[in-house]
C-alpha cells in the first residue's frame, strides 16, 4: 500500500505542477487577450467565495442563502476605507475580513441553534437585511447609485492596473485559499465538520463542540467572501448594492451545487463552470432568441439548479470521483478499496442519493 500511495502522491504532484505551469503561462498563451483574462479574474474571485461556501455547505452541511452579504462587506469596506479615508488597500482588506468574521459571529450564534429550514430562512433574512443596509446607508455606500472611484490595489509599491497583474494576484489568493481549505479538510477540524454533517449527536458525544465549529467555519467562509469582495472592488473600481443581494447569493449557491463536494476544489470548478456557462449563454442566446435579454440566464440557471440537485447532488466533482472509482475497479487495480488513506470528501448537500 505504501508504494501505491507514493505513486499516487507523485501522480498528483505532477498534475498540480502542470496546472501551476498552465496558470503561470496562461497570459502568454492567450497573448494578453483581455477578455479571457478578465473572465479568469472573475472566475478567481467567485472561486474564493465558493470555496469558502463549499467548506460551509459541503463539509459542515450548513446552508447559507445570504453569502453575497459578506462579499459586499469586503467590497464596501475596501471601497470606503481606500477611497474616502485614504487607507492602504491591504489594511482595508484585512479590516473587511475581520468585519465580515464579526458579522458572521454575531449572526451565527442565534442562527446555528435553528434547525434545517429555519437556518436557511434566517440566512436569507440576514442577506436581505444586509442588502437593505447597502442600499440605504448612502453616506458610506453611495446607495443605489453605487460607489465610484475605488483606487487600485498595489503590491510592493507597484499599483496594479492591468488585467495581467490582477490575474496573477487574484489567482495567488485562490491558490492560497485552496491550500488553506485543503489543510483544514485533512485535519481534526475537517473531520469534526464532516462528523457534524454526518450525525450531530454522535459528533457531540465524541467531544466535538458543534456550535463552536459551525460558527468558526461560518466565519471563515465569510472571510473568504469578504476578501473576494475586496479584490473585486479594486478590480472593477465601481460597485453597487445589486451585486450583493439575494440573486447573487443564489448564484454562489449554484456554483457550490455545480461544483460539488468531493473535494475542496469543488468551489473552483463550480465558479468556472458558472462563469463559462454565463458567457456561453451571452453568446448563444441572442442568435437563437433575438428578443431575449439577460433574462434567459435566470431560467437557465434555475433549471440547472433543479436538475443537478435531482440527478447529480454531489455535483461535478462527485460525479468525477464516482467515475474514477468505477474506472479503477473495472481496471482491476485494487479490490474496490481506495488506495488513499483518507478520502477527504464531503457528503453531497443532499446527503442521500449522492
Amino acid at each position, binding site marked *: 500500500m505504501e508504494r501505491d500511495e507514493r505513486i499516487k502522491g507523485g501522480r498528483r504532484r505532477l498534475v498540480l505542477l502542470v496546472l501551476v505551469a498552465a496558470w503561470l503561462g496562461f497570459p502568454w498563451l492567450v497573448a494578453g487577450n483581455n477578455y479571457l483574462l478578465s473572465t479568469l479574474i472573475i472566475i478567481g474571485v467567485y472561486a474564493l467565495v465558493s470555496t469558502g461556501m463549499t467548506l460551509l455547505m459541503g463539509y459542515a452541511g450548513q446552508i447559507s442563502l445570504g453569502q453575497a452579504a459578506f462579499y459586499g462587506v469586503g467590497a464596501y469596506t475596501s471601497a470606503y476605507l481606500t477611497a474616502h479615508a485614504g487607507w492602504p488597500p491591504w489594511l482595508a482588506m484585512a479590516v473587511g475580513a475581520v468585519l465580515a468574521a464579526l458579522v458572521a459571529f454575531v449572526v451565527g450564534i442565534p442562527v446555528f441553534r435553528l434547525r434545517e429550514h429555519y437556518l436557511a430562512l434566517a440566512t436569507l433574512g440576514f442577506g436581505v437585511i444586509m442588502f437593505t443596509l447597502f442600499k440605504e446607508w448612502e453616506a458610506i455606500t453611495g446607495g443605489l447609485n453605487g460607489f465610484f472611484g475605488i483606487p487600485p490595489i498595489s503590491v510592493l509599491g507597484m499599483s496594479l492596473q492591468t488585467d495581467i497583474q490582477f490575474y496573477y494576484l487574484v489567482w495567488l489568493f485562490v491558490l492560497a485559499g485552496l491550500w*488553506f*481549505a485543503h*489543510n*483544514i479538510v*485533512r*485535519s*481534526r*477540524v*475537517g*473531520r*469534526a465538520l*464532516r*462528523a457534524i454533517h*454526518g*450525525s450531530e*449527536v*454522535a*459528533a*457531540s*458525544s*465524541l*467531544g*466535538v*463542540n*458543534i456550535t463552536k465549529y459551525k460558527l*468558526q*467555519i461560518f466565519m*471563515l467562509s465569510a472571510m473568504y467572501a469578504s476578501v473576494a469582495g475586496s479584490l473585486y472592488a479594486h478590480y472593477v473600481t465601481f460597485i453597487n448594492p445589486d451585486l450583493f443581494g439575494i440573486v447573487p447569493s443564489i448564484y454562489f449557491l449554484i456554483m457550490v451545487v455545480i461544483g460539488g463536494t468531493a473535494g475542496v476544489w469543488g468551489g473552483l470548478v463550480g465558479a468556472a463552470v458558472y462563469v463559462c456557462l454565463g458567457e456561453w449563454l451571452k453568446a448563444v442566446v441572442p442568435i437563437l432568441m433575438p428578443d431575449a435579454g439577460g433574462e434567459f440566464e435566470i431560467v437557465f440557471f434555475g433549471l440547472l439548479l433543479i436538475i443537478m440537485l435531482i440527478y447529480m447532488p454531489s455535483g461535478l466533482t462527485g460525479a468525477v470521483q464516482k467515475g474514477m472509482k468505477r474506472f479503477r475497479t473495472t481496471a482491476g487495480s485494487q479490490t474496490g*478499496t*481506495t488506495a488513499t*488513506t*483518507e*478520502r477527504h*470528501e*464531503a*457528503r453531497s448537500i443532499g*446527503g442521500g442519493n*449522492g
Partner: protein
Amino acid sequence: MSAMLLEVEQLSKSFGGVQAVQRVSFGVKKGDIVAVIGPNGAGKTTLFNVISGITPPTDGVVRFRGMTVNGKRPDELAMLGMTRTFQNLQLFADMTVLENVMVGYHPRLKSGIISAGFRLPHTVKEEKRAREEAFACLEQVGLVDLAMEQVGTLPYGIQRLVEIARAAVSRPSLILLDEPMAGLNPQESKQLVDVWLAMREQGITFLFVEHDMETVMSVADRIVVLDYGQKIAEGTPEEIARHPDVIKAYLGEEEAAPC
C-alpha cells in the same frame, strides 16, 4: 470519599407530565461493568441520555470523577472522559472506518482552525499520532483490514464494532453503551464481549443498557434494574436473578400481554 467513577443521585427526568425517570440512585465503580436492565419503557434510554448530557435532568445530581456534571454538554463530557454508543447506531456513514475512529480521537488533539489551516508542525505531528492510535484501536477490535471501507457499506455487526472502537480510541474513563447487542447474532455478540473485556483490562469502565439477559448475566459485575422509571433492585447477577421484585416486573409484563 468514594471510589465511584460515576454517581447518580436521586436523578429524575420528566417530559411534560410524563415521569420517565424517578429518583434513581446508583454508583459505578472504576473498572466495573455495570448493566441497566428493565422492561420496555422503563426509562433506561432516558437515563442514559441524562447521564451523557443529551438532555438535562429535571432533578438530582450526576457526578463523574467526583465532579458534578449536571447539564454539561455531551462534548464537554467527552473531554472529561465519558463517551457513548447509540441504540440506533450513529456512525458517520459517508466516512471510512478509519475516519470514523479518528473522529473519536478528537478529545486528545488540540489543533484549531488556524493551526490546521496553516498546517503548522504540531498539527502534522498530531495527525500522525491520531492515525496511529486509530489503527491501533482497529487492530484491537480486529478491523484493520476494513480500515478504508466506507462504513455505510459494511454489515451491521461490523458497524457495531466500529462504533465501539470510535468510542474507545480516546481512552475514556467510562463508556456508555446503549443496547450494544441489538441485532447481533450470537457469534457477533461474543466478539463484542471479547472486545469489552479486553478494553476493561486497559482500564475502561462500562455502563450499558441491554435486553439480552445471557450477556448481561455473564458479563456484568453489577446490575441495576429499572421499572416504570424507578430503580427496583441493584446487585450482583446472582442477587438479581433471585430478586422477587425483578421477577415480578418481568413476569408481570408477560401476564399483562394479550394472547
